[in-house]
């Protein structure tokens, strides 16, 4: 069964550094998403992406964040200058239709 994959599984970075989280969505899917879950808190929506542009974003997704689909398979989330409060589990998801989203296993980002 096709699945969403994410790399790395765990990323440790120093405050102020840039990080790129990578996702490979299911191959025939057209809609892509990023969510995050700070330890002990809810899963929160960050951004959705369709047809090579952002279709919706939350208040969390400020100028420090950007997304890109650099080729036909990868979907990336970049955090330009990480802060301690960016430490969280980041989930990528994709969907063929606009409703059923398939999630990856997540990348745990630790900012020190």
């Amino acid at each position: 069964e096709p699945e969403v994959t994410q790399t790395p599984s765990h990323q440790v970075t120093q405050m102020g550094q840039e990080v790129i989280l990578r996702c490979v969505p299911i191959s025939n899917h057209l809609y892509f998403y990023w969510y995050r879950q700070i330890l002990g808190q809810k899963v929160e929506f960050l951004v959705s992406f369709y047809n090579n542009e952002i279709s919706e974003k939350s208040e969390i997704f400020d100028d420090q964040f950007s997304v890109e689909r650099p080729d036909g398979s990868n979907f990336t989330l970049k955090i330009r200058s990480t802060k301690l409060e960016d430490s969280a589990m980041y989930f990528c998801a994709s969907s063929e239709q606009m409703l059923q989203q398939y999630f990856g296993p997540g990348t745990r980002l630790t900012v020190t």
Partner: protein
Amino acid sequence: AQSVTQLDSQVPVFEEAPVELRCNYSSSVSVYLFWYVQYPNQGLQLLLKYLSGSTLVESINGFEAEFNKSQTSFHLRKPSVHISDTAEYFCAVTRNNAGNMLTFGGGTRLMVKP
């Protein structure tokens, strides 16, 4: 805007006992409702969904949920749980008139004991 409340952060239960995981939502527009399950060290997997039609929806592994519009609830039930059902369960909603952002509840950790 919409919000989701899962009233129980943890639910311990013995194997073969029934369980109910509660979910209430708030929204100014009509919504679609979902339950996702997260097993240890894995991603979120869709368990079941309510889009329209029958208010009772079922999953392939024995879970069911009932949409109650008057009580704005979408509680998840299983008549007899197994050890393998131990996981985190998330209730989520999305608007059904535009967009597809999922809004999640805080999650309920189901712990099935032998």
